[in-house]
């Protein structure tokens, strides 16, 4: 079938897009340290803060803003309150008190007591019936760091045994030194340790993507994600039936074109998913077996080759697996790079034969499958009808919109600065949609795609601000292997999306096992059989790494009879239990 027909016939996957948590979220950094709690006169709260901040300057590197400085009696966890009341019985003073927390690192206890003495609770009036005050010397010894989060130890001043009231009693308790990740964690800590504030707007620094960017991007990709993943499966099928590789496919999408499609659809009041294929800038299939085969074999009957290699897909044999540079993702990145190299005239004029690099084609990027070739070379323009008036003007060019709308720029991305120059080049630039449509339909363009000035590609050239895969999204049939996952970051993709059924224990993106309702016993038990036997790297967003991408899983609502999505395309189901690198 011709590529265009395959694309036309694509039935989108149905389901929803969910964000993949970061490993810092699934395995949160928790650490606890001792804090001092003291009971003070409620009227002196602001003076106490002033006195404390000047006497014990806060550690800037450990902001404890998630811990409340003050708490009323009814906010204190039971166990802590019991420890406090053991050394500072509530009936000794007038009841007008508040509790102040001094965060770690702990200051000298004696200095703190002296400082706070003037703010001690007011004693109860003399004429009231005051029970005999317990001797402080008999209470627990000097504050010692407690070793469990829930344990609280109490101490009182042992240096002022004379019954001089008021006096400050210090109690130590464990507090979390990092802010909570969510409300339930904050509640848990508040109930067991000390009142904690959850601030969803607080910068979680590098621990997780900003929630608004994560959800905005999710909303933007969800309408067409099923289409792109269905296309990825077609590419995978092509790779598998050709015998060149495993059934793994990749689809690279430019979200800037997507948002352009959205705005056009909005203007025309049409279906914004109708022209989904126009946002695809490249597709790539796995070719891990192709290095073993002579290149010409690919042009022979696909059926024969398919049979030859069908055995290889039924197991994992490292000797015939090719290498990760033949994986779909790596080839997709290379397609885009190759396109730019060809378009970069400067490079073409100054070849460097002395360059000690391999000049062959290690990733077989010159051997394109029909679908690969179609999207790299043959689709030169958006397939929308020839209605130039409907096209947005140049200030809605992809680059412009990208930064206005899709919110991709959290790293030092080169386009941020090139953005300002985009409108001036757009009228004659290849990316200008009106220039593309003015001479007719898509099929009228006849280009071999290899020429340095081929107008066919949707890949932004370097002069148009294209740099690696910055700002692009990659849709994959499977969770990419560790190597490809890091390749996504090094290529600066904006987001990676794969179907949840495409998870692999060898993958580098998932951050936790799937928790599945057991209602449907025919549902794939992926979480069960893979959960304990894999690493969860969550490479898409790790605080240790310089580059990060958004990660999403596509959760299908309508699986086919076998209950399998990605693996079903081998038709014999042989791939179901094979663990390989995608």
């Amino acid at each position, binding site marked *: 079938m011709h590529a265009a027909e395959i694309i036309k016939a694509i039935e989108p996957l149905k389901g929803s897009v969910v964000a993949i948590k970061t490993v810092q979220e699934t395995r949160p950094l928790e650490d606890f340290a001792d804090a001092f709690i003291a009971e003070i006169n409620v009227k002196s709260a602001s003076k106490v803060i002033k006195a404390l901040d000047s006497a014990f300057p806060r550690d800037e590197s450990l902001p404890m803003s998630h811990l409340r400085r003050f708490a009323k009696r009814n906010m204190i966890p039971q166990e802590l309150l019991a420890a406090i009341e053991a050394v500072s019985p509530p009936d000794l003073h007038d009841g007008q008190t508040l509790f102040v927390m001094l965060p770690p690192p702990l200051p000298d206890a004696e200095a703190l007591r002296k400082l706070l003495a003037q703010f001690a609770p007011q004693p109860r009036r003399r004429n009231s019936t005051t029970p005999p005050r317990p001797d402080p010397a008999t209470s627990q010894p000097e504050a010692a760091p407690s070793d469990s989060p829930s344990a609280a130890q109490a101490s009182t001043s042992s240096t002022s045994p004379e019954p001089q009231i008021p006096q400050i009693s210090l109690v130590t308790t464990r507090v979390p030194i990092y802010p909570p990740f969510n409300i339930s964690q904050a509640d848990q800590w508040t109930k067991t340790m000390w009142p904690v504030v959850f601030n969803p707007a607080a910068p979680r620094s590098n621990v997780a993507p900003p929630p608004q960017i994560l959800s905005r991007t999710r909303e933007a990709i969800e309408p067409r994600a099923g289409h792109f993943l269905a296309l990825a499966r077609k590419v995978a099928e092509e790779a598998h039936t050709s015998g060149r590789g495993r059934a793994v496919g990749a689809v690279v999408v430019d979200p800037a074109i997507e948002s352009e499609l959205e705005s056009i659809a909005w203007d025309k009041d049409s279906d914004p998913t109708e022209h989904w294929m126009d946002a695809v800038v490249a597709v790539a299939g796995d070719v891990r077996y192709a290095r073993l085969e002579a290149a010409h074999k690919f042009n022979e009957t696909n059926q024969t080759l398919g049979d030859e290699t069908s055995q290889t897909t039924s197991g994992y044999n490292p000797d015939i697996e090719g290498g990760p*540079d033949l994986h779909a993702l790596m080839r997709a990145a290379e397609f*885009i790079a190759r396109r730019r190299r060809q378009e970069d005239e400067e490079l073409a004029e100054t070849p460097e034969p002395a360059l000690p690099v391999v000049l062959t084609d290690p990733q077989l990027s010159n051997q394109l499958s029909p679908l690969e070739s179609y999207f790299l070379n043959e689709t030169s323009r958006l397939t929308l009808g020839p209605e130039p008036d409907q096209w947005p003007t140049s200030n809605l060019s992809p680059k412009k919109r990208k930064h206005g709308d899709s919110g991709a720029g959290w790293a030092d991305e080169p386009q941020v600065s090139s953005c300002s120059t985009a409108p001036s080049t757009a009228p004659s630039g290849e990316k200008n949609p009106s220039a593309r449509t003015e001479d007719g339909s898509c099929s009228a363009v006849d280009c071999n795609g290899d020429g340095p000035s081929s107008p066919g590609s949707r890949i932004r050239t370097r002069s148009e601000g294209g740099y690696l895969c910055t700002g692009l999204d990659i849709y994959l049939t499977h969770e990419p292997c*560790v190597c490809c996952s890091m*390749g996504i970051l090094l290529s600066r993709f904006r987001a990676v999306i794969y179907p949840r059924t495409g998870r692999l224990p060898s993958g*580098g993106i998932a951050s936790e096992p799937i928790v599945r309702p057991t209602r449907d016993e025919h549902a794939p038990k992926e979480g069960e059989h893979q959960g304990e036997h894999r690493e969860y790297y969550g490479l898409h967003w790790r605080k240790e790494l310089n580059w990060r991408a958004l990660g999403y899983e596509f959760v299908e609502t309508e699986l086919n009879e076998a209950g399998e999505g990605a693996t079903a395309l081998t038709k014999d189901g042989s791939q179901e239990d094979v663990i390989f690198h995608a």
Partner: protein
Amino acid sequence: MDEAFSEIEITPAVSENSKHAQWMKAALDMGEKALEHGETPVGCVLVHNDKIVGRGMNDTNRSMNGTRHAEFLAIAEFLQSFPKSALQSTDLYVTVEPCIMCASALRQYRIRSVYFGCANDRFGGTGGVLTIHADRSIDSAYPVYGGLFQKEAIMLLRRFYIQENTKAPVPRAKKHRELNTAFDQVREITATNGVEVLPSSQ
């Protein structure tokens, strides 16, 4: 799988004319070539039966492909003359600790062992950030030895990063920077994370 390391002997002291030194110098030469070509200066060689069978240097700028690291180029050259399975009896000498991507690729390609110069605190996949060479995986683990000609590898990188990146969208002026030649701030490569430490090259 993880026990495999304990059975590997710790490499004998590296003298100027030892084989390890010879191979790492060849890798440093590749790093120099990368520097000459405006690439981040990382170089490597693959050694099979006491012969260099593949050379690589970082090629991301020229290729405009952020995944074209030295290791991939060396393997590509290797595969022109050898089957993939021969990598099981091949060692890699690379000036900088392999990144996470390359650490995984080397494991999938079943490299025998990896010798590196300086650690990679930002992206390192063999102890720097993650321990891809030793983690649970469907491919067997490989031993890693770090710290071989560490200072030379670092000086290559410093000579690169002191340059102004004219290709950057907003080139940062670095006129007043001087080449740092001190090593007191350099993190020592410790024998944790399954990385053996080679004796210093001096």
